[in-house]
């Protein structure tokens, strides 16, 4: 009798046993055999279907631990390692894409490195042989070494509006700088003032107003950059602002004023400054200015 659709059928055993009894009951017994075989084949099929992640300890030399990952997410692989070995694995972020890997080693740590990549940073705690997971105890997968994706939101600079204009040429640059001069971040304000002073296409009166405002900023960094920008734009005409800056409470601003001026009288006055570097710079500049 032809049997189809049942997969492999072992004629050497099951069929001969079924067909040796009298004809009347042959069909009944035959169908019972088919049912038994089908149930058996179904059970075998389920066993033979390959699991996505499997870790085995075989005891083989140089291949004690064998890890097989078939197109499965990393977290499943790490779960399997924890389940079979007892090693506790800590991680914060994992790549989302599925991986496939075959890792074989005497040491579970090497299996982990095989799975996660040789460049990943792992921190182990425990003592004893690396091949014995119970002696290792725990392992931490440092997220920064594994996950290379970063949220654009996380990188947004503080204090900057979402409506910053796209930088397209000078106009875009000036728009950006005009926003950044009001940023919460001190360095951002300072750099924006310095760069704005160089923008020849920017509204001169507006830039001057911002620089004058920057000369009275709470931050010495910003005041210094505003002074630098003002001096660059006004040259010798910046003398009053430079002289005023020599009275600043912060030595950084006074230092900037000395650096920006070649006025001998200002430099001589700076020789009496409370700050040693201000005095030193003033003296060096006076020496450079003196006729040889």
């Amino acid at each position, binding site marked *: 009798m032809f049997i189809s659709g049942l997969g492999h059928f072992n004629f050497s055993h099951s069929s001969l046993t079924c067909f040796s009894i009298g004809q009347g009951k042959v069909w009944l017994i035959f169908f019972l055999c088919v049912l038994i075989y089908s149930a058996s084949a179904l059970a075998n099929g389920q066993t033979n279907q390959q699991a996505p992640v499997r870790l085995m300890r075989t005891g083989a030399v140089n291949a004690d631990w064998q890890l097989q990952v078939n197109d499965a997410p990393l977290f499943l692989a790490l779960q399997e390692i924890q389940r079979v070995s007892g090693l506790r694995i800590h991680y914060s972020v994992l790549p989302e894409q599925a991986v496939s890997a075959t890792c074989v080693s005497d040491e579970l740590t090497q299996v982990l490195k095989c799975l996660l990549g040789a460049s990943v940073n792992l921190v182990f705690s425990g003592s004893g042989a690396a091949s014995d997971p119970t002696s290792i105890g725990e392992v931490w997968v440092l997220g920064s070494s594994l996950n290379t994706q970063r949220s654009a939101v996380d990188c947004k600079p503080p204090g900057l509006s979402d409506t910053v204009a796209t930088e397209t040429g000078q106009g875009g640059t000036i728009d950006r700088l005009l926003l950044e001069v009001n940023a919460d971040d001190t360095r951002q304000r300072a*750099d924006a003032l*310095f760069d704005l002073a*160089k923008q020849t296409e920017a509204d001169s009166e507006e830039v001057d107003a911002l620089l004058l405002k920057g000369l009275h900023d709470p*931050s*010495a*960094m910003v005041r*210094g*950059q505003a002074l*630098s920008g003002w001096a*660059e734009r006004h040259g010798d005409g910046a003398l009053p602002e430079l002289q005023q800056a020599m009275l600043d409470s*912060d*030595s*950084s*601003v006074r*230092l*900037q004023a000395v*650096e920006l001026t070649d006025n001998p009288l200002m430099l001589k006055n700076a020789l009496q400054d409370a*700050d040693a*570097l201000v005095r*030193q*710079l003033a003296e*060096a*500049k006076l020496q*450079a200015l003196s006729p040889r």
Partner: protein
Amino acid sequence: MTLKTKLTLLLTVFTLGAVGPAAAHSINNKTLRPAFGASATDIWQATCGAGSSHMFAQIRDQSADNNLVSLVVVSGVRGATTTDLTGGDPTYSPGISVNAGNATYTMLVNHTRTGGQAYSIEYHCENASGGHTETTTPTAESQNN
């Protein structure tokens, strides 16, 4: 020897004596200010003209303290660093050369600790034989800390 010959010889000697090595370009008496902390970095740019093979540069730390000043010169994919290990003396750091031909060179000045520093830089562009070539002078810093 006639008087004319003596005068000619004397004039020749004085002329030769007046021809010294070509003057280097200098950026003098500049500062890294305390307000910018340990990250303070000054940036200068200069361009070497046609015929240049490299830029030579060195830095002098004018502050006698243990806050050392370094100069990094970069152009394209080439760069070099030099540090003045003794601040406050008239000696410059060892000279460095960056071989990027006729190109714009960026000079970055930084220091090893928080605190103000005064420095001066000497630099010039040279051809392959060491002769000076056209070198621009930056009118202002690209970044002034």
